[in-house]
């Protein structure tokens, strides 16, 4: 992978996995808390780029720094056009905002935004996967509980209880877990 060893990135807010992803991409990363004095941090570190959550209120402070001097990182959405603009829009929609100083090469900027985007997308897909797993686990539990009720009530084996539940679902044109939920609700009353 191409390295951007000379490129200092300031990350606002603590996102350890993003720090790792950026370091893997060859960037040198320092991160500070949202409540820290950003004027002091930027003066001290002189980063070529600042990455911040798009929804962080500290963005207005970064806008001020950008307005004070061209030496400070400028908001990317406003700088680039064409393909790069599309990239920064995507980043913004994923909740990332980048400020970039004049000296940083276009390639490094693109790499920075791409690393952040793919990190955020991975995070999103992990989150979706987790939700899906949690949901299917919950459904599994419902179905098991409904089978137990049927086995007890009708004195049938597990396979028959499952067949019964399946036909309930098919007749009502609902999912297996909904059929289980209905059955348990009836049992509860």
């Amino acid at each position, binding site marked *: 992978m191409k390295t951007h060893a000379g490129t200092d990135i300031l990350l606002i807010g603590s996102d350890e996995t993003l720090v790792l992803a950026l370091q893997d991409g060859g960037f040198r990363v320092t991160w500070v808390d949202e409540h820290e004095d950003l004027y002091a941090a930027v003066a001290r570190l002189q980063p070529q780029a600042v990455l911040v959550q798009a929804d962080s209120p500290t963005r207005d*402070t970064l806008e001020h720094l950008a307005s004070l001097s061209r030496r400070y990182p400028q908001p990317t959405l406003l700088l680039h056009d064409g393909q790069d603009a599309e990239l920064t829009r995507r980043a*913004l929609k994923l909740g990332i905002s980048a400020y970039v100083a004049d000296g940083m090469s276009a390639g490094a900027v693109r790499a920075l935004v791409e690393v952040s985007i793919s990190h955020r997308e991975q995070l999103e897909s992990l989150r979706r996967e987790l939700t899906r797993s949690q949901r299917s686990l919950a459904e599994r539990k419902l179905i098991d509980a409904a089978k137990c009720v049927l086995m007890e009530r009708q004195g049938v084996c597990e396979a028959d209880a499952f067949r019964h539940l399946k036909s309930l679902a098919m007749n009502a044109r609902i999912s297996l877990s909904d059929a289980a939920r209905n059955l348990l609700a009836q049992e509860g009353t």
Partner: protein
Amino acid sequence: MTGTVTLGYLPLTDALPLFAAQRLQLFADYGLRVQLKAMPSWARLRDALLIGEVDAAHCLAGIPLAAQAGLYGPGADLACALTLNHFGNAITLYRPLAERLSGGAGMLASLRRKALAERDGPRPLTFASVFPVSKHEFELRHWLRNLDVDPDHDVKLLVIPPPLVARALQERQIDGFCVGEPWNSLAVHQGIGQVVASSRTLGLPGTEKVLATRSGWLEHPDHLALIRALCEACQWLDQQDHRLTALDWLAETLDLEPEHLRPGLLGSPAGLLETEGGSLMTFSGINCPDDWHARWLLGQMEHNLSMPAFSDPEAICRRAFRADIHDLAMRTATT
């Protein structure tokens, strides 16, 4: 017309016309379904306007002007055709500092002495406003100049988002700030701030927030309908008893106690009541974009923000402040 429109806003007292229009069903009266979307910063709100995430927004008047002046790049074509309010900001000092300085007019003189004494030290007096092109910044500078303090050399000026100013004050990152309500009254309530001036008493042009949108959307029927609905809401807010009703809506929307919002809406920020009568902000009778205010704001940007002179300020103001669209909206039939 049955448009669905997304409106951005920052959770501030002067966004009230948007909430009032929603509660009073005024948007519905003009055939609009409106979704209100809170934004965490002015930068985020500007970007949301630029990428079309919102159709229009409660916005600092300086943002469409800065966009037309080219500060946000060539594609940033923002404008406004409705002023939402005049005044509403105040200047608050760190309370222990204000108390240490001698009272009244003497207080301001001793603030000046302090500023000059600490100017070359490790920690000069430091003040915050809310955005580079906000009127707050220019009000703060004006107030400092009135004290014979040079805002560029005698003190340090920062931008700190209003939700973080109280903390910055407490941690002594700053000694005072100029922000909109409810943030002054909240700092007073927390016992860390004392209000020393309000935008109404500074004698500067009043235009504070506008309804900003992309220029391409100015003549859209939904935009014209928005202008009429919001004008009606502003008029309704003229009466004290209506504001009292609206206080509860505001408290609910901003998730704050009505008592902390009351000074900004019905009186003056706490602490200024002795010196100032009348209410802090005006919503009605000021809704047509005022070209003179635009010129003043643009001039302030030029003089205070170390920018190269704008080549054609009149054209910038004409593109940013669209009184013609305001008139068009008011002429358009309601049905």
